[in-house]
């Protein structure tokens, strides 16, 4: 998000020579072209997917495309029981740690924000939470711990890596 907007703003010529991909673009390409194959029997538990603001709303605003469909397509390739939090997508809730707030001392405000994410998670009651963002990963893990909820949190590429079938 920062890199992409920086490139577009200050180094537009970059795109004449190079191509850039988001994590989703790469995973979709690898899966759809058959460069990687995934074990469909590994992730049968109930998995909730969380949309990070950067890949969703902000990408949509800055680059005209929010990455809502891609991660869901990726999940659908090998996860049998994934669900959305409500609300999800463009109206989804931030984890509470966006905007660099993970790096500020205002932890109380951050936890207060996260109550919304926790409410959402409780409504779905998943066995695993999957997301594609380092900040969200940290913040949601912390919020779950604060609320004594024992639900693991994994990166989207983490479960892809775990499901890899190596020839």
């Amino acid at each position, binding site marked *: 998000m*920062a*890199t992409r907007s*920086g490139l577009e703003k200050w180094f537009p010529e970059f795109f004449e020579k190079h191509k*850039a991909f988001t994590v989703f673009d790469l995973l979709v390409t*690898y899966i759809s072209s058959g460069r990687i194959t995934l074990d469909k029997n590994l992730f049968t538990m109930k998995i909730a997917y969380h949309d990070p603001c950067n890949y969703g*709303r902000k990408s949509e605003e800055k680059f005209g495309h929010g990455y809502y469909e891609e991660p869901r397509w990726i999940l659908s390739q090998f996860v049998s029981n994934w669900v959305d939090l409500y609300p999800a997508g463009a109206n989804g809730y931030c984890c509470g740690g966006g905007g*660099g707030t993970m790096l*500020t*001392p205002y932890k109380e405000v951050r936890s207060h924000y996260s109550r919304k994410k926790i409410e959402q998670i409780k409504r779905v009651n998943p066995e695993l939470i999957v997301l594609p963002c380092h900040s969200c990963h940290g913040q949601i893990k912390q919020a779950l711990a604060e609320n004594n909820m024992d639900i693991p949190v994994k990166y989207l590429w983490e479960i892809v890596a775990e499901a890899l079938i190596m020839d």
Partner: protein
Amino acid sequence: MNEPTDTIKSHAPLRPSGIKPETCMACGTCSAGCPITGMEGFDPRKIVRMVLENRDQELIDSKLPWLCTMCGKCEHACPMGINIINIIRDIRGQVDRDKVPGQIHKGVELCLETGNNIGLPGEDFTFIIGDVAEEMAEEEGFEDFVPPIDKKGASLLHTLHNKLVNTQNEDLVHWWKIFHAAKEDFTMTSENWEGVNWGLFSGDDEAMKIIVGRIVDHMDTLRIEHLMYPE
């Protein structure tokens, strides 16, 4: 009485809709939807109102802009399409750098100095990478994995989130495994490997540009065609 000219109201960039912040009708949508409204006096509608009244300095001096997660949920429902997040970033950017709370600006400074937000020395970086890669190579299917660093002519540049070489080493391997399985010709870099850019959060365009520029340099020097966006 003349309006001051160089105000947040006048220079905060507009959303793609191009709508001026003055269009705000103070309907309350943003405040009603923001989960931290009321915390420590935070209230997005108030912030917009203060901006409209040119009360910039009060905002710059407050901690309000740093409480916001800039998630944009307020904007998403804003019926007038007001640029609330851009306003927040604009305020953040006007705060004296030494008054930026927490690690955000310190990270930026470290990044500018050392090439990464945590100031990790080069040898430590190489060690961690090597160590984690060795461990990974013990797993079935990844026996021949060697982490590529500064590989000229590689197809894809892979930058790293500082936390992967800091507290979360175990998460380094996921992409490596995927690349390995996909037979992707990727590389990391030994210097300036930082993938995240906190200038975005601190409102520091100058630093942000330098850090993005490093990625461009890598791509050019190492003749890499493709970039995987770090975040």
